[in-house]
């Protein structure tokens, strides 16, 4: 496998002061589905637009299939399919005309009709873009990226604002593209999306990669794979976090929305001790759940923030 996308020490500073990207390194292999995960404002869009050759980095290097944007822009454009965040296509053109227009820019495009069928837009082919639902518009946006028969698909928050069914449809399309040998780079702030779709992920915060690996590897970093969340009477500000941290098998502890969250290696050992401790202190257990650790937990652990927060 060779690197499809590579960037080294990428930096982007807006107006000489706002540092959107601060020394970011990525290497994405051919055939991979790679996810950039991070909260709003983490620098995901800036990063992906630099990789797409739409933004000039302040410093750093980008290569796509070993070629730079400066020297091979036209050839690279033929190989890339891009869906930007918030593009509003012309409302008074039909779906078929829109796809036909985008196909006309490429030397060897796919058949527009075939792409529309694949995107389940065949029935809407003669409808004006203005009459489409949000999910259909998003699929059309991805269709405009696929019609050029790309080798790499760039998707910037492809499923934001979609209903669950439209999201799954889009996931299927992305998987299909990947199974046929394509490389995918997507940004998202949905955990489940990243976990399901991506072979590898980079968690981005404040313009830097703070963790990278497969979803399983990232969760492994928590050492304990389980989360125990509980609430006891009289302890709502989490002042006793230190005491909970001292329980056997607890890797880390945090206070989240009135709940105490323990990251534990073996819940069957920790929970009895936890119950004993609660009774010993004469308190009441108001709530207790356990679950598998998720990427969200990894993210909170690394940044102290939730993904969806600003």
């Amino acid at each position, binding site marked *: 496998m060779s690197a499809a996308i590579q960037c080294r020490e990428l930096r982007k500073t807006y107006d000489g002061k706002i540092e959107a990207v601060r020394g970011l390194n990525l290497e994405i292999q051919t055939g991979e589905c790679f996810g950039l995960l991070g909260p709003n404002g983490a620098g995901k869009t800036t990063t992906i637009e630099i990789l*797409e*050759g*739409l*933004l000039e980095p302040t410093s750093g290097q980008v290569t796509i299939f070993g070629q730079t944007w400066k020297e091979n822009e*036209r050839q690279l*454009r*033929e190989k*890339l399919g*891009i869906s*930007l965040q*918030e*593009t*509003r*296509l*012309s409302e*008074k*053109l039909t779906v078929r*005309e829109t796809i*036909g*227009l*985008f*196909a*006309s*820019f*490429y*030397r*060897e*495009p*796919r*058949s527009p009709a*075939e792409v529309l*069928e*694949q995107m*389940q837009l065949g029935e809407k082919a003669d409808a004006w873009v203005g009459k489409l639902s949000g999910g259909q518009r998003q699929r059309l946006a991805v269709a*405009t990226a696929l019609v*050029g*028969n790309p*080798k790499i698909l760039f998707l910037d928050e492809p499923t934001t604002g979609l209903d669950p*069914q439209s999201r*799954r*449809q889009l996931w*299927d*399309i992305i998987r*299909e*593209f990947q199974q*046929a*040998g*394509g490389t995918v780079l997507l940004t998202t702030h949905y955990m*489940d999306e990243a976990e*399901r779709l991506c072979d590898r992920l980079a968690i981005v915060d404040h313009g830097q990669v703070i963790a990278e690996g497969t979803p399983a590897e990232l969760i492994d970093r928590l050492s304990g794979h389980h989360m125990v969340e509980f609430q006891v009477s009289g302890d709502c500000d989490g002042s006793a976090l230190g005491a909970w941290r001292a329980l056997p098998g607890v890797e880390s502890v945090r206070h989240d929305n009135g709940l105490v969250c323990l990251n534990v290696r073996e819940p069957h050992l920790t929970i009895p001790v936890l119950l004993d401790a609660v009774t010993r202190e004469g308190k009441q257990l108001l709530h207790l759940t356990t679950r598998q650790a998720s990427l969200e937990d990894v993210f909170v652990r690394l940044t102290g923030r939730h993904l969806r927060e600003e």
Partner: protein
Amino acid sequence: MTLAQQTLSTPVPVSSKNSTPRNSRWSGFAHLLGARLRELQREPEVIFWVFGFPVLLALGLGIAFRNKPAEITSIAVVAGPRAQDALSLIQHSSQSSSIRADVVEEQKALQAFRLGKYDLIIVPDGSASFQYRYDPARPESALSRAKVDDALQAGAGRKNPVSTSAIASSEPGSRYIDFLIPGLLGMNLMNSGMWGIGFALVDMRQRKLLKRFVATPMRRSDFLLALTSSRLVLMVIEIGLLLGFGILVFHMRVLGSLFTILLLATIGAVAFGGLGLLTASRAQKLESVSGLMNIVMMPMWIFSGVFFSSERFPAVVQPFIKLLPLTALNDALRATILQGASLSAQFGRLLVLVLWGGISFVLALRWFRWT
């Protein structure tokens, strides 16, 4: 959460070289132009502003300023013992058909004179003379004084020492509508060039569509060329419509060749397209580009002789007015349509247009932001 795996019926090959079409060099341009024209055609307000509005304007102004038959003069004769004398003198003159005289109270007469109902008041004084009251600042009032005086003197038996005669002349080519239509043509070329290109570009920039386009292998020059070409297609229809309208409804005579007119209009449309491109080269919002457009176009609406001749402005500013692209275009169109002037006779005007267009394009392409 259940994972609803929706399997799609057809597996899709990433590349199927045999069945895929190979696009030619110009397919992008052709599709861009086609898409733009279809978009315009589906926008009813565009059809109105580009085609309906200029024709309606020409019709309205053509009717309002049509050459009327000899003007009827309304005058007041202040009621009194000698009012009847004045009336009968006027009635006996050869001008009686074009003078309408009312006998009214002095106060009422003054009131109506101020409101413009009467052009002149005749005040008979005690003796045998009449006094005229008129406003020298109102052309029709001054005219009325001369006419009524002539009628009174003639009615009273004046003999003309020299005999004269006159022939009426109002040929097509010298009327207001003949002046107006080339001006409207020029104004329309400016409006549609500036708005059609500038506004459309900022709209696409705001919608991130420009960014989406440059993310494809689309040639940027093809895009701008297609946008300009779509305006040229509209331009041909516009010219046909306005000139055809002038010829059919107002019996306008076109002396210059259609080819010269089209060539001039094309140069004008491209020049204003360049100006539109420049105005829109960096603006991110429709509101800001609207303001800029108005600042650029306002002086030309006023000074460039659309509705009245630019010669009316003081001589000091004439050199500047002549350098405005719309003045050059309007003057060139008028000279060609009304006087049949040849292209070579209009070198200066063409140069003004080409310079405006050329410099605008060069600057616009340097500053243009696709994102």
